[in-house]
């Protein structure tokens, strides 16, 4: 994919959505676990730890995958995979947390383990998006820093809005699962959009 102006806009928008979704899910993490592990500070600690750990792994993997010729199709699959990997948070949260609650008495480790099972995989995949986006945006060395800066700006700005929106408004308007479904649909939409756009672009060539 040659980075025409339109394609660049798509990558920027996609990075914004992924940043938004990461924090929307993270904000709900402690809420999802509180029925089993309580509302103590350690539950927040577990959620943040696992998210940071997953993102760091995602950055590494995404960067590796972007080597050589990056493919928009691969990029679109990140979004679709993240959406699919987030589905268990909606459908199996209780099934995952119940046995952990039974097996581990200490809510600190209980919530840590539960965070791994609930959030690690989708967050890792979401973390892969940032370095891959940069690779798609960068055409030559000179502007690579500028592109990285722009990308960090939109995705982190998206994260800020995702946090604010979820903490201030979404929880007031929707169920937790409805908000999760919203993020899953958003990711799915972005993934499918990039996939079809790439297909169309290739056909026209």
């Amino acid at each position, binding site marked *: 994919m040659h980075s025409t102006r339109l394609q660049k806009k798509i990558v920027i928008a996609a990075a914004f959505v992924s940043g938004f979704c990461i924090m929307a899910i993270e904000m709900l993490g402690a809420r999802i676990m509180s029925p089993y592990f309580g509302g103590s500070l350690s539950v927040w600690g577990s959620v943040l730890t696992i998210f940071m750990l997953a993102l760091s792994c995602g950055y590494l993997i995404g960067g590796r995958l972007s080597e050589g010729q990056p493919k928009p199709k691969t990029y679109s699959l990140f979004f679709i995979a993240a959406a699919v990997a987030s589905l268990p948070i909606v459908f199996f949260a209780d099934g995952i947390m119940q046995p952990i609650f039974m097996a581990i008495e200490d809510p600190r480790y209980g919530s840590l383990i539960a965070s791994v099972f609930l959030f690690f995989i989708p967050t890792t995949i979401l973390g892969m998006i940032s370095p891959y986006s940069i690779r798609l945006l960068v055409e030559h060395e000179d502007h690579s820093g500028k592109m990285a800066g722009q990308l960090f700006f939109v995705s982190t700005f998206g994260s800020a809005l995702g946090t604010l929106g979820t903490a201030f408004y979404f929880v007031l308007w929707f169920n*937790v699962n409805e908000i999760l479904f919203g993020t899953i649909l958003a990711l799915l939409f972005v993934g499918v959009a990039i996939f079809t756009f790439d297909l169309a672009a290739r056909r026209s060539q």
Partner: protein
Amino acid sequence: MKQILILLFGLALLRPLCAQTIHEERSVYRDITVTERFGRRCLLFNVHRGDRNQTCIFTDGSRRLVFDYTKMSFAGLLLKPDPKRVLIAGLGGGTIPLVLSELFPDASIDVIEIDESVARVAKDFFFFKQTDLMRVHINDARVFIKRAALKEEKYDYIVLDAFSGDYIPEHMLTQEFLEEVKQVLAPDGVVVANTFSTSRFYDHESVTYQRVFGEFYNFKLPTSGNRIILTQLKSLPSPGVMAERAAQLTPQLREYGIPFLSYPEKLSAEVDWDMSRRVLTDQYSPSNLLRDN
């Protein structure tokens, strides 16, 4: 202008005479302050944000309780006059468990407090003592109760008092949580919940309690911003039965300054909330946002 300055200066001089801070600490969850003034020692959370007193005791050795809401919580005895296994979520200064242990020396009392510092302050400044029968568990009340339910434990007197005025632990005001409380409630036991009486939130909370427990007694006093919810699994006792129990217990409670005889007539099972409000659940519990709106 000059007069105002003199006035301010005068007030600044007087201040230490009125209130003396005898202990201050910042715990993981809140700022804890213990003050002494006008013959009262008080426990305050997050003073800087203007929180109310959590617990106050008289320093002259009197057993009288200071706050109406603390006294009101003993209305639970109208529904269960002889508790044997007590569960209290939220220690504060430890007044409620202390009085219950004095009234019922054979009862076993489990107190759940999330904040270790609060437990220490209750011991050091508010004469709270753990015994073989009265134990404090440092834990989240929801987690403790869920485990108790798994072990099929039953309590016949459950006090929910974990709301510190400023912030509501949202996972302890949901339908699912109350279902878990119900599981550890003995067939003839009572649930006493110290809750809020602010407008919109009052409706949500009432609807949620109604969904889980059906009928409940509301206990409000014009002098207190709190509302106490009293409920049990079997049908609520009639005013006559409660008046009888009040008469029996009044002599014991007089020492604590609890006007127990006047309580039964102030309990109401009438629906005075907006029934169309949404039930609070684990999926939907923006309690802190709802309360501010």
